[in-house]
């Protein structure tokens, strides 16, 4: 047990994390590229047009994965923020900060593709549908997190303060979601459930899964990459950074 603890802290120490992330990130990136290509092939070539929606349903293969990612990443960010806050693990703080921009980006993409899917399906770019509305609020939460991080100059204080905000947000996300769903049903807005088609063909489902995994791999690669840069910036005075930079120069 004690040995395991040592192992864990060894991995969490900045230089080890920096080296390991540097070795892993290209693999995740490459995997993401392959999965994107295969997923798009299955989604665009193998999958037939939908009998109701024609070809516009193919937006699902990018819309649903980005929407899922936007929510997973927020929770993941809050988990890392909590680890950083409670156990003072510097790499966890850096990971939380590194996740935010990618999460915001996926949220934006979910909104954008949702709007473009809405036009041919509902006849309008934007409806105050429960899912789109929650995504919009999630985007605001991401932006608030990044704004607070940027506003505080002291890095340690910025990490701790935004961790509190991320935790407040993650408690609120389900409440926001259910209140928005409730608001939506009471106002009888457009609530066409496009994503939960009752009989999704296997080929469509596999395209969706491939694209979801591709987004995961992409997110992991980019977050690890950004976390390495954040770590360098935070630790630029540390001996291990100078050592590694000295080798390159």
């Amino acid at each position: 047990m004690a040995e395991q603890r040592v192992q864990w802290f060894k991995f969490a120490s900045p230089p080890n994390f920096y080296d390991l992330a540097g070795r892993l990130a290209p693999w995740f990136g490459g995997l993401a590229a392959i999965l994107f290509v295969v997923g798009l092939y299955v989604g665009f070539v193998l999958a037939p047009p939908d009998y109701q929606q024609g070809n516009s349903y193919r937006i699902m293969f990018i819309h649903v994965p980005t929407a899922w990612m936007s929510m997973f990443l927020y929770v993941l960010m809050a988990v890392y923020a909590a680890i950083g806050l409670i156990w003072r693990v510097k790499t966890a703080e850096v990971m939380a900060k590194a996740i935010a921009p990618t999460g915001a980006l996926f949220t934006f993409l979910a909104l954008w593709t949702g709007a473009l899917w809405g036009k041919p399906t509902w006849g309008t770019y934007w409806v105050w549908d429960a899912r789109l509305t929650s995504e919009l609020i999630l985007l605001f939460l991401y932006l608030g997190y990044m704004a607070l991080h940027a506003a505080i100059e002291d890095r340690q204080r910025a990490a701790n303060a935004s961790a509190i905000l991320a935790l407040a947000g993650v408690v609120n996300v389900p409440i926001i979601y259910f209140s928005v769903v409730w608001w939506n049903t009471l106002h009888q807005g457009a609530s066409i459930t496009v994503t939960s088609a009752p009989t999704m063909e296997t080929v469509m489902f596999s395209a969706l899964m491939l694209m979801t995994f591709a987004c995961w791999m992409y997110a992991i690669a980019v977050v690890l990459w950004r976390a390495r840069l954040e770590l360098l910036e935070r630790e630029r005075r540390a001996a291990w950074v100078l050592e590694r930079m000295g080798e390159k120069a």
Partner: protein
Amino acid sequence: MNGLATALFTLLRRDLILALRRRQDALVVLGFFVVVVSLFPLGVGPDPQLLRSMAPGVLWVSALLATMLSLERLFSDDFRDGSLEQILLAPQPLSLMVMSKILAHWLITGLPLVLISPLLGMQLNLDGTEILTLMAALLLGTPILSLVGAIGAALTLGLRGGGVLISLLILPLYVPALVLGAGAVDAVMYGSSAQAHLSLMAALLILTLLLAPWAIAAALRIMSD
């Protein structure tokens, strides 16, 4: 235990006395609320039916914005004159001391909003039961606004441009209170009962009472060390 009660009461009384000495702060918030609500008819036209159907949302959004306006000074005055440091160093639990400050904030800014809301409701053509529901919803909802807002106020303590930042941090977190509060009045307007909305709002208030003080205390410690 007695010492704790005394400390909390002393803090509450101090905040209230300070607020009475600087009455204009509370009045500005109230005035803002009244002016924003009164401007809406000028923007959308005087059609009574339209105003009536918009009233719950307009009143609630204005209440959110008015609360927002008052948040920046919640801790910053105490931070500047050093009394916040005294509160942090006090032997009493910080989360309880924070509750006492928030109670004072609610009495100064939240309660006046509740009390003036019938007048504004009548301006927007709400009838008797709708106004009562509006007051009940605001009575349950404004403490939530103070509590959640205090998290934002603590997190932006001592930052330049903190006031604008608070709105970005906190307004998304106000969504459940807004939905439930405006929804309660809507429900009565369309002939059903507001009981479900008000019960959920009460549940939300209890949840916020349990969790927010902890977050506020942690944020104050982080931002003032």
